[in-house]
């Protein structure tokens, strides 16, 4: 049995799957280094990310299966859950057999699992597009820390690059030590080791007070409903909210 080991990047994953398609042996796993556990009869094949191969597979998924499938695969990758590599591998094998019809096989085991997982990632990304809070720090950059369950920082960066296009910002995933940095032209993903100077400007404190006040006054006392509030906005996301 062949076990393909990739570097944890999406290109790495696609390259590993590409190699697995050409494997003569049975494919036992497509794994990140930290997922791999040595076993008897396991043939461990380290794969280096190869842009040409990953691009080729990327385009093949998009054109021969569907853009929706491509998006879902990316989201499942972002979930960082165990064994997603093999799930995606089997999904793609089916996909290349039946084409874009795969998106309608909702009751197929593989499709159902893929949809479920990508749905979770997509829902968290949607929620955090609302809950992320930027703070203007000394130097004029807008800084937004968060700790998402899934590795969704690239989805956030793409959203805010369109939306907050005329300001410098920095989105910081504190759980993973990752940052997306935007300079009014493009954003890039980097490891975040050193924190910037996080002192808030006076202007920032002013707007935070205004927002807190708005938040207090917009609630209707007679309809108070903490359960509904928590159901919509789970407590683990409150840490970086200005209003909470």
């Amino acid at each position, binding site marked *: 049995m062949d076990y393909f080991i990739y570097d944890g990047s999406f290109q790495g994953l696609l390259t590993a799957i590409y190699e697995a398609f050409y494997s003569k042996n049975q494919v036992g796993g497509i794994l990140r280094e930290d997922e791999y556990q040595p076993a008897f009869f396991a043939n461990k094949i380290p794969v280096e990310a190869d842009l040409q191969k990953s691009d080729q597979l990327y385009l093949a998924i998009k054109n021969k299966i569907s853009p929706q499938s491509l998006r879902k695969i990316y989201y499942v990758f972002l979930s960082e859950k165990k064994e997603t590599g093999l799930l995606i591998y089997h999904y793609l094998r089916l996909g290349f057999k039946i084409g874009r019809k795969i998106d309608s096989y909702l009751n197929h085991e593989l499709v159902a699992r893929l949809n479920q997982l990508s749905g979770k990632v997509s829902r968290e990304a949607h929620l955090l597009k609302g809950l992320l809070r930027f703070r203007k720090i000394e130097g004029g950059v807008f800084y937004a820390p968060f700790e998402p369950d899934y590795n969704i920082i690239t989805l956030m960066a793409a959203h805010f690059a369109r939306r907050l296009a005329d300001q410098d910002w920095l989105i910081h995933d504190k759980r993973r030590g990752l940052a997306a940095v935007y300079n009014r032209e493009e954003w890039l993903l980097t490891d975040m080791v050193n924190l910037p100077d996080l002192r808030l400007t006076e202007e920032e404190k002013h707007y935070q007070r205004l927002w807190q006040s708005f938040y207090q006054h917009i609630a209707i006392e007679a309809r108070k409903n903490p359960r509904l509030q928590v159901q919509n906005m789970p407590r683990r996301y409150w840490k970086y909210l*200005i209003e909470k």
Partner: protein
Amino acid sequence: MDLLDKLSILADAAKYDVSCSSSGSSRKNTPGGIGNGARTGICHSWSDDGRCISLLKILFTNYCIYNCTYCINRAGNERPRAAFTPRELADLTINFYRRNYIEGLFLSSAVLRNPDYTMEQLLKTVRILRKEYKFNGYIHLKAIPGADLSLIFEAGKYADRMSVNIELPTRQSLKMLAPEKDFTAILTPMKNIGQAIRQNQEEKKKYRKAGPFVPAGQSTQLIVGASPETDYQVLKVSENLYGQFNMRRIYYSAYVPVNKDSILPALKSPPLLREHRLYQADWLLRFYKFRADELLSEEKPDFDLELDPKANWALRHLEYFPVEINKADYELLLRVPGIGVKSARRIVTARRNGSLSYYDLEKFGTVLKRARYFITCQGKYYGGIPIREDLVKSRLLSAGDRQQLSLFSQE
């Protein structure tokens, strides 16, 4: 008065407006501009009452020339009063938006001096936002009844959504509780906005460059429980508004007693469950192809507070059930309690590839707790009890409606 005080007063005064939706617009950002629309809408927080905060929902001013009985801002109330300037409000919106507090602005107002003057202030605010600040985020703007139509039409070019609150379901109730307001004066701008939206849609088909006009549609709001109308009357009004005025959404606001007045009902707490039932029925009108007359009648004019309107309808029409999941058309699937738009679509999609079993439905996330009593899969019935009104009803009542209901109870 400083900005913090103004904001406190005018947010407090705006909170009884229900709508906070930011959906329906996919406005793009422009070069050098800020903001864009998200078609599905985005919630940015949830206040202590559990309601979503999506927009900076605020009154331009709470100085009012009217004295409507049910309204917190009535002229006769002694309350702190404030007014923004258009510039202040535009700056506040932009600065909140830059920090991702909000999806945009929902600007309403009490009537200061006269309707035209008030509408001009709102218009100035959104003009600064759109033209000067190149703001492309969401804007929901109230049309002030009685304001000149040219002002309202201009506002429609900047706004994503507009609304005129009908306030109360009937002319009589409005006359009683808001004697200075005139039902016709409310319906006129509503009708005109509706027509203009339709016209704009036609133009867009012909010339691609036709500018937007209220692309997220118009909405309205009415208060439930301050006047004697039945649910049936309210729902009939809604049905007409959707049909005649090209209305996108109607909001129902459980009456919260804010003023003491002998002609207003004395309620201990707002009728939240009734409000919830009306929303459910409203959804049935818009997405499930129900008609008001199917849900209620002169003889049975109010919703059952125990069971939701769809389950209620199904129990009274057991002759349609059980439906076979593999054969029933989309419209009929939508009528099965527990099956929503998403599930019905999934079923229709998945069964193209072959017959579906009960377990297939579970696999793609159909919730069968309620639906099982109303369907067969490949001819098999999984309800486990005879389809009789009393039996099924008692199962539905124990199947989780209780939990749902407790969300509407006071804690």
